[in-house]
């Protein structure tokens, strides 16, 4: 499984949505499933999955799937 697939599964499991719904444009708070509590679950999931520690700025900036990929890339995750 490549990192992109792992990212999609992390989102899908944290937000409890179908993997097909995990697209770059999907934004925080744009669907009921991606609320603040799910955001918390997502942060923990991404940190565990990719072995990174997200900073406060990352958590604020992580407002879409695409942006999350960018942030993980800044932490050395290769997509």
């Amino acid at each position: 499984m490549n990192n992109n697939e792992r990212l999609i599964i992390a989102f899908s499991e944290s937000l409890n949505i179908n993997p097909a719904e995990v697209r770059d444009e999907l934004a925080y708070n744009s669907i009921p499933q991606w609320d603040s509590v799910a955001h918390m679950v997502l942060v923990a999931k991404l940190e565990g999955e990719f072995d990174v520690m997200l900073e406060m700025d990352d958590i604020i900036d992580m407002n879409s799937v695409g942006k999350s990929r960018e942030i993980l890339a800044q932490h050395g995750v290769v997509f």
Partner: protein
Amino acid sequence: MNWTFSKYQVLFRPVDKQDIEQLRVWRNRDDIRSNMLDQSIISEQQQVKWYESLSLRSDRYHFSLVFREQLIGYANVSLSGDSGETGLFIGHEKYRGSFLALCVGVALSDFCFNELKLEEIKATVLPHNSAAIRFNEQLGYKTEEKLPDRIIMTLFYEEFLNSRKGMEPLLSRFQKN
């Protein structure tokens, strides 16, 4: 009334005259104004008049929200006995729709319950503003009344504590060490 406090690295301070033009520009933006009860465009003159009236009311708190020394938005609390009504908007593009907005909502609710000792907080939301309804629900608000042109939501301390508890692991990262 004047009050300054800081939580989750967001400074809530009295509105300064230097803030009011930026607040007016944000307030007049379509995406913000369209979610207000009063959707009229505010003129510079009206804004100055509003600013000059702030010190006259002892039952209102008006805050400029500052994060990392940048103005990011506005919040208020209007008192009515043991009840209060809150309003807020994040105008700064970088922080609109971000987790920081929720930090502001939690901090403002905390201020209402723990400093002002209010028994309940109310929020009036336009029916089309599903983002604000969801935002309030995340804080623990429940819909009290659905009117054709507005929804009245109420937050009690117990529900707020339950909601905040669930968010604490992430919120704690926003506390300054």
